[in-house]
C-alpha cells in the first residue's frame, strides 16, 4: 500500500506530533491534502498542535478521559458482563470542517429531512408517492416499521421526525449519506461532552480558532418540542421518556433532560387516563403535553403496539391519536429509515420538493430485487451487507473482512429472506489524525449531525464525530470499539 509522509508543509512546524503520520491515498484525509500538506483550514491546528510535545498532548488526552469517568459520561454495552458502564473513548485531536463545507452540508440536511417528513405525511395520509409508482407499495406496507395505526393521525406541523441524526461519510467523491436515523437517534450528548472536554484541555488551541458554538442544542430542542404541544400554550409540560438506567444511551437521556429542564420519566411514571397522559408527581398526577421518547415504538403502549411489553404506558397511543399529547418522534417514522426505503430518498426529494438532492446516497442494492440479490451474492467479498431494519453495527457483514465461511453462512441467510437485506460497496471512509502511542495516525471517521424539526427546521453547527480506533477498521459504532472526536465547524 503506497504511503505518503504527511506533515511536510514546513519542516519546522507541526513536526513532533505529525512526524510519522502516513496518509493512504485510497482514503480522503480530513487534515492533509494529497501532497501531504495540511489543508488550508487545518493549518492553524497543525501548527498549534505541532508546538505541543507528545507528552503534553498525552496528558491532555488522559485528562479528558479521566473527566469522562469522574463525570460518569458512560454508555452501556449489551451482553458484556461486568462491563455495563463504560466511557466512550475520546480522541482529543479535533476534526475540522471548513465554513463552506458546513454550509453545503446544512443545506443538504435540511432538504433531506424536509423530504423525509413529507414522505411520512404522505404514506400515512393520501399515499400519492406509492400511487404514482415512485416507491413500491409493498416496500412501505411490508416494512415492519410501518404503523397502520398512524393512518390519518394529525401530526403538528407535519413534523413526524423532530429529531434526526444523519450519518454522513466522506470519500474522494465527497459527502455521502450512510443512513438516516429517524427513530431515536442518539449521540448528541457526546457531541456536547466532547466539545466540553476538548475545549477545556486544548483551550489554547481552541482559542486560536473561530469555532462555531453548539452549546444551545438543548434550548433548540426544547423549543422544537414545545412547538409540538397540542395545547399551544407558552409553557407546555415536556417529558423525556427513557427505557431506564440500563439503556445504552441512558447518560444521554439524563443529560438532555437536564439541559432542557424537563422531567426524565419511565413508562411506569406515566399514566393514561380519560385519553390524557399524566405523570406521577409527589403532588399527584400532572398532565403531560409533549413526550420526547427515547424508546422504540414497540414499547410505547402495549395496547397499541406490543401486548407482551411491560415497559409501555397502556392507553398512551389513544391519547396521542386524539391529539391530547404529542410524541416525538412520531410512531412509525422507522419506515423512512428502513435501509431499503433509504434507496428511494433521492427520488423522494425530486418527487416532493422538485429539487435535485444535494447530498448523495451510497449506491445500494436491494436484495428484494432479483438483480440486486444476484449482484450481492456474486460480490459478497467486496460488499457490506446490512439488515434493512438493523442498527448499531449489529447484524451486518463486512465482506472484505469476513472469512469465506462467514460469507457462506451469511449468503445462506440472505437467500432465506432476501428482502431483509441490502448491500452497499465497502466505503472508503475518510481518515483523520488520531492520537496513538506513536504520535498522530490516520483513523477512519464519520459524522452524525442532528437536525431538529418543529414549526421550523433547526440545527447546531456540529456533529458527533465517530472514529474507528482500531487501525484500518471501518466500524465506528461505539458498541463495536469506536470512539468519539470533537468536530469544529469553523466560521467564515
Amino acid at each position, binding site marked *: 500500500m503506497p504511503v505518503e509522509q504527511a506533515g511536510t508543509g514546513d519542516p519546522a512546524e507541526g513536526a513532533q506530533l505529525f512526524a510519522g503520520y502516513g496518509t493512504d491515498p485510497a482514503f480522503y484525509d480530513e487534515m492533509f491534502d494529497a501532497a501531504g500538506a495540511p489543508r488550508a483550514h487545518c493549518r492553524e491546528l497543525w501548527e498549534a498542535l505541532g508546538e505541543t510535545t507528545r507528552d503534553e498532548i498525552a496528558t491532555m488526552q488522559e485528562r479528558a478521559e479521566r473527566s469522562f469517568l469522574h463525570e460518569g459520561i458512560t454508555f452501556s454495552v449489551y451482553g458484556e458482563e461486568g462491563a455495563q458502564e463504560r466511557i466512550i473513548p475520546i480522541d482529543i485531536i479535533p476534526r475540522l470542517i471548513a465554513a463552506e463545507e458546513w454550509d453545503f452540508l446544512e443545506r443538504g440536511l435540511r432538504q433531506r429531512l424536509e423530504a423525509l417528513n413529507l414522505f411520512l405525511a404522505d404514506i400515512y395520509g393520501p399515499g400519492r408517492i406509492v400511487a404514482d409508482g415512485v416507491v413500491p407499495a409493498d416496500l412501505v406496507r411490508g416494512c415492519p416499521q410501518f404503523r397502520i395505526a398512524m393512518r390519518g393521525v394529525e401530526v403538528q406541523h407535519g413534523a413526524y421526525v423532530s429529531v434526526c441524526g444523519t450519518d454522513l461519510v466522506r470519500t474522494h467523491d465527497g459527502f455521502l449519506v450512510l443512513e438516516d436515523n429517524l427513530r431515536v437517534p442518539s449521540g448528541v450528548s457526546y457531541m456536547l461532552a466532547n466539545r466540553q472536554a476538548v475545549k477545556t484541555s486544548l483551550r489554547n488551541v481552541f482559542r486560536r480558532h473561530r469555532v462555531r458554538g453548539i452549546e444551545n442544542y438543548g434550548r433548540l430542542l426544547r423549543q422544537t418540542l414545545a412547538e409540538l404541544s397540542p395545547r399551544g400554550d407558552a409553557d407546555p409540560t415536556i417529558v423525556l421518556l427513557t427505557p431506564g438506567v440500563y439503556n445504552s444511551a441512558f447518560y444521554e437521556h*439524563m443529560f438532555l433532560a437536564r439541559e432542557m429542564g424537563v*422531567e426524565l420519566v419511565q413508562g411506569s411514571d406515566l399514566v393514561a387516563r380519560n385519553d390524557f397522559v399524566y405523570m*406521577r408527581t409527589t403532588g399527584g*398526577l400532572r398532565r403531560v403535553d409533549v413526550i420526547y421518547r427515547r424508546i422504540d415504538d414497540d414499547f410505547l403502549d402495549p395496547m397499541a403496539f406490543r401486548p407482551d411489553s411491560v415497559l409501555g404506558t397502556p392507553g398512551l397511543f389513544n391519547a396521542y391519536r386524539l391529539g391530547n399529547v404529542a410524541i416525538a418522534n412520531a410512531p412509525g417514522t422507522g419506515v423512512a429509515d428502513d435501509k431499503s426505503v433509504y434507496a428511494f430518498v433521492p427520488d423522494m426529494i425530486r418527487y416532493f420538493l422538485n429539487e435535485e438532492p444535494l447530498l448523495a446516497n451510497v449506491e445500494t442494492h436491494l436484495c428484494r430485487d432479483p438483480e440486486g440479490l444476484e449482484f450481492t451474492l456474486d460480490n459478497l467479498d467486496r460488499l457490506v451487507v446490512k439488515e434493512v431494519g438493523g442498527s448499531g453495527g449489529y447484524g451486518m457483514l463486512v465482506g472484505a473482512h469476513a472469512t469465506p465461511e462467514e460469507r457462506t453462512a451469511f449468503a445462506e441467510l440472505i437467500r432465506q429472506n432476501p428482502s431483509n437485506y441490502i448491500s452497499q460497496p465497502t466505503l472508503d471512509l475518510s481518515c483523520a489524525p488520531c492520537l496513538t502511542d506513536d504520535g498522530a495516525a490516520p483513523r477512519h471517521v464519520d459524522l452524525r449531525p442532528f437536525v431538529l424539526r418543529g414549526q421550523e427546521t433547526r440545527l447546531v453547527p456540529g456533529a458527533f464525530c465517530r472514529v474507528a480506533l482500531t487501525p484500518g477498521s471501518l466500524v465506528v459504532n461505539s458498541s463495536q470499539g469506536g470512539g468519539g472526536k470533537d468536530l469544529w465547524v469553523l466560521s467564515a
Partner: protein
Amino acid sequence: MLSRSAQGLYWIGRYLERAQHGCRLIADQFETMKDRPVDEIDKSWRRLYLGLQRAPVGGELRSNLDDEQFMLVDAYTLADDLTFEPGNPDSIRNSLANARENARQVRNVVDEDLWTCLNLAFLEVRDIEIVDIWRDRPNEFYRRTEDAVRTFFGIADGAMYRDDGWHFLQLGRFVERAQLLAGLIDAQLSVYSAGGSQADRATDPDWLSLLRICAAQDAYGRLHSLQFEPAAVVDFLVADPLLSHSVRYALARICEALDAVSAGRPLLVEAGRRAGRLAATIDYDWPNRDPGDDSTNRATLREIGDSCRRLHDDIDAAYFSYGVEDSPEA
C-alpha cells in the same frame, strides 16, 4: 416533582446517612481498641452490631450477655463485614453504591457537583478491600469516606435549590438518622446495663464513645463538663433539639421537610401526623420517664425506631407509590 425523582433523592439521603453512621461507628471502635481491655472491646462490638440489628459474622448475637459462649471475632473480619462485605446490604460500600446508583437514575435532578462528589466517593471504595485499608491506618479510610459524605451534604446545603428535591433528600437523611440513633442508644442501654451487676455498668469511656459516635462530646462537655451521668447522656441524644445527632433534632427536620412538601398542610397525610406525634412524645412524655428504668426506656426507644420505619411506609404511600385511581390532578 416526579415521584420517582423524589424517591431517588430520598434514598440518596438515607444511604449516605447510613454510610456516614457506619464510618463513625467503626472509627470510634478503633479508638476503643487502642487502649481498652479485650472484654470492653468485645462489648463495644456487641453494642455496634446490636444497634445495627445485624448478627456478627461467625457467631449469633445473643441478647443474654452473661453467655460465655460469645466469641469475639477479630476486628479485621468485623470491620470487613461492616465495610466491604458484598452480602451485607448496609455495608459502607454498598450504602455508597446504592446512593450512587439512585443518583445515577435521577441524575437529571442531582446537581453536577453533587453527582461528581458522590461518583468519586463511590469510585474510591469500589476497587479496594479490607486488606488495602488495613495495611497502614484504617482510620484514615473511614475519615476520608466520612468526609466525602460530609462534602456531599455541604455542597447540597450550599448550592441546592430549596424545592421538593432538597426536602426529600433531607427527609431521607433524617428518617435514617432518627432510626439509627434510636437503635444505637437502645443497644447502649442493652449492652451496658442489662445485667445489672457492677461489672456490666457502662464506664465513662463507654459514654464518651457513644457521644463521639454522635458527634456530641464537645457540646456535652460544654453543658455538663465531662461528668458522664448516664441519664443526662441519653437525654441529650434523644431529646436535645439543638444537637444535630439527636432524635429530636432529626424529627424537627423531618417535620419541616414534610411541611414543605405538603404545601404547609402536613397533617393531611399520615406521615405528617406520625412525625408530629413522635416529636410530641419526646417533648412531653420523655421528660417524665424514670431514668433508671432501662427496660421501659429501651421499649420507648424501640417504639421510636418502629415509628420511623412506619414513617418511611407513610412517606412512600403518600408521595411515591400512591394508587392512581384515587389521586387528584396536581
